[in-house]
């Protein structure tokens, strides 16, 4: 392989990542603003909220964390609730470890930091056996930079102006709309639809009993139900 082709391949990974992640990064703006507004409403300082957003990198978990604090839950209850919401990342971690198996372990431990829903969806859609590991790393790092950059840029905007916007704007709908859009894109086969319906039913029915654990349980049940269909369809 010549030096030129190596450079081209690297630019290609970064360029494709930017192109692919842009439609995912756009919906992050109102979502990050909604998280920022919720953080402001919880009387958490901008600096603490922003730093928290930067180290947690999980908007829905941050929403749950702030809601728990506002409703009088203690320090450990709030952190525990956020961790439970993020339990689904264990499944993303399996995919991540599989795609980056050839990367040195210390590097994988760093790369895993920005692993979120959007990243998982993107990698699942993009990575094939044709992509070598350096291409994958470059793609992943670029996509992460765009997603994290968008999230952390719009968080303070929401913090500062979110609560003075008219309530009819519906900033709180940003999250559901963004995830619904990703869902529309993720359902391609009958097995996907069955898994999605299964996950939705289980989370709604199980939440009153299992609270934060309902989400990972729904994930396991939904995947199991969908997997049966994959098995039947061969």
């Amino acid at each position, binding site marked *: 392989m010549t030096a030129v082709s190596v450079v081209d391949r690297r630019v290609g990974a970064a360029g494709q990542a930017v192109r692919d992640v*842009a*439609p*995912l990064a*756009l919906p992050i703006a109102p979502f990050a603003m909604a998280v920022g507004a919720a953080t402001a409403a919880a009387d*958490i300082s901008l600096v*603490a909220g922003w*730093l*928290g957003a930067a*180290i947690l*990198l999980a908007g*829905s*978990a941050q929403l749950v*964390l702030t*809601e728990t*604090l506002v409703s009088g839950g203690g320090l*450990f209850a*709030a*952190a525990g609730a956020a*961790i439970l919401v993020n339990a*689904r*990342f*264990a499944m*993303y*971690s*399996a995919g*991540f*470890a*599989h795609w980056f*198996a050839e990367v040195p372990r210390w590097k994988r*431990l760093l790369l895993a*930091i920005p692993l979120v*829903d959007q990243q*998982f*969806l993107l990698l699942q859609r993009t990575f094939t056996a044709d992509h070598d590991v350096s291409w994958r790393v470059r793609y992943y790092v670029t996509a992460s930079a765009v997603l994290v950059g968008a999230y952390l840029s719009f968080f303070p905007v929401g913090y500062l102006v979110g609560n003075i916007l008219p309530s*009819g704007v*519906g900033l709180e*709908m940003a999250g*559901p*709309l963004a*995830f*619904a*859009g*990703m869902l529309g*894109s*993720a*359902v391609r086969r009958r097995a996907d639809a069955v*898994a*999605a319906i*299964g*996950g939705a039913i289980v*989370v*709604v029915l199980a939440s009153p009993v299992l609270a934060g654990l*309902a*989400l990972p349980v*729904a*994930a396991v049940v*939904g*995947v199991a139900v*969908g997997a049966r269909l*994959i098995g039947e369809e061969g």
Partner: protein
Amino acid sequence: MSALLVFALAAGGTYLIRISMVVSGVGERLDSTWTARLSLIAPTMLSAIVASSLFLDRTDLILPAAADVVAVIAAALAVRRSGSLAVAFVVGFPVYWSLGLVL
């Protein structure tokens, strides 16, 4: 200070979850059956998140507003049809706003 401590605890726990399959080595040993199942995680998780945002107030079951449900369905269908995720907001928010005025 206490808020930062909560974030740090949550971030630490979340990071351990993110690296769980790297550290355990499970993710590297996945065979084709398991990798096929991985493809089901995204639709399952996304629908579960959307369903919780519509039908749950924390852990209590609620009846969602019609505008919320219709906007979410419209966003999902629009993205499915167009292939562009940005369309979720272009379609979803106007549907939500208009139904909010009417209903």
